[in-house]
């Protein structure tokens, strides 16, 4: 298949409701995304944006919104290096995993053949998922910028 798919699973010591809040509430996302944040209009057809201040880094449309278990959005990067790529699709599945815990599965697929974005999103999701888990469990997110060597703060 020419449409690679990235799948990442992380278990979090918090209820699906708490994980959902951390994923979809703009203020909460700012707590663990190191200067970035996410806005989501939580209804099918609503807009979602990943931003740094007012700068939109990628954006999309809500396809499925089933709080607190499933959010699926289209994902279109706005950065120059990926310009012209068709939107891909990101799905967050949050399952109760017993004992007030959650299993979060992040799936990013439906990339166009030869997509450059497909090659790099995985690293980003692993950083975001690690920081999200720390934030939900400890109240303190991770510094995403220190994970990227040579990144501009």
């Amino acid at each position, binding site marked *: 298949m020419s449409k690679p798919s990235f799948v*990442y*699973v*992380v*278990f*979090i*010591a918090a209820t699906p409701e708490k994980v959902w809040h951390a994923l979809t509430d703009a203020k909460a996302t700012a707590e663990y995304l190191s200067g970035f944040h996410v806005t989501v209009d939580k209804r099918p057809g609503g807009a979602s944006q990943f931003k740094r201040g007012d700068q939109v880094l990628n954006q999309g449309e809500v396809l499925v919104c089933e709080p607190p278990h499933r959010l699926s959005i289209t994902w279109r990067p706005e950065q120059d290096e990926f310009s012209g790529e068709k939107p891909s699709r990101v799905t967050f599945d949050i399952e109760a*995993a*017993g*004992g*007030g*815990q959650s299993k979060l599965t992040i799936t990013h697929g439906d990339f166009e053949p030869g997509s450059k974005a497909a090659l790099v999103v995985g*690293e980003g999701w*692993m*950083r975001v998922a*690690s*920081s999200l*888990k*720390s934030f939900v*469990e*400890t109240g*303190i997110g*991770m*510094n995403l910028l*220190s*994970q990227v*060597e040579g990144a501009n703060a």
Partner: protein
Amino acid sequence: MNASVNKPKFVYVVYIAATSEKVWQALTDAKLSERYWEGARVESDRKVGSPFALKLKRTDKDIVGTVLEADPPRRLAFTFQPRQIGRAHEAPSRVSFDIEPHQDQVKLTVTHDGFEPGSRVFEEISGGWPFVLSNLKGFTETGRVLSYQDSACAVETAAS
């Protein structure tokens, strides 16, 4: 490059707010591993050529192997062979832990490869590692662990 297409390979990356030494210790100390690794005690002197084992309460479920590389606190590689019925006939696979410091945190990369095509062990570890590594991260950062039996409830608190 193309030769790897049919050979199953599992790679998982997790960032942990801790030092390399602390993550290395959690990965190689029996008393610590028992807490977050579904009860498994890591038994190894971490010398190349020495046995590496994950000892479980039921010995017929132990994982056994040999240390291939040890460079504390950066890299540990070992062979991985479950003794359990239905898996023991498979050739040993290979696990490596790579720990890289990134300022206030570390990047832990777990690579598990060397499986036979159609490996049952590969299917099982693909489901198992995300839980163990999520638990390692949480345990290292908070001292608490996830419950892993359906009947167990609530997050345990470290007795330290």
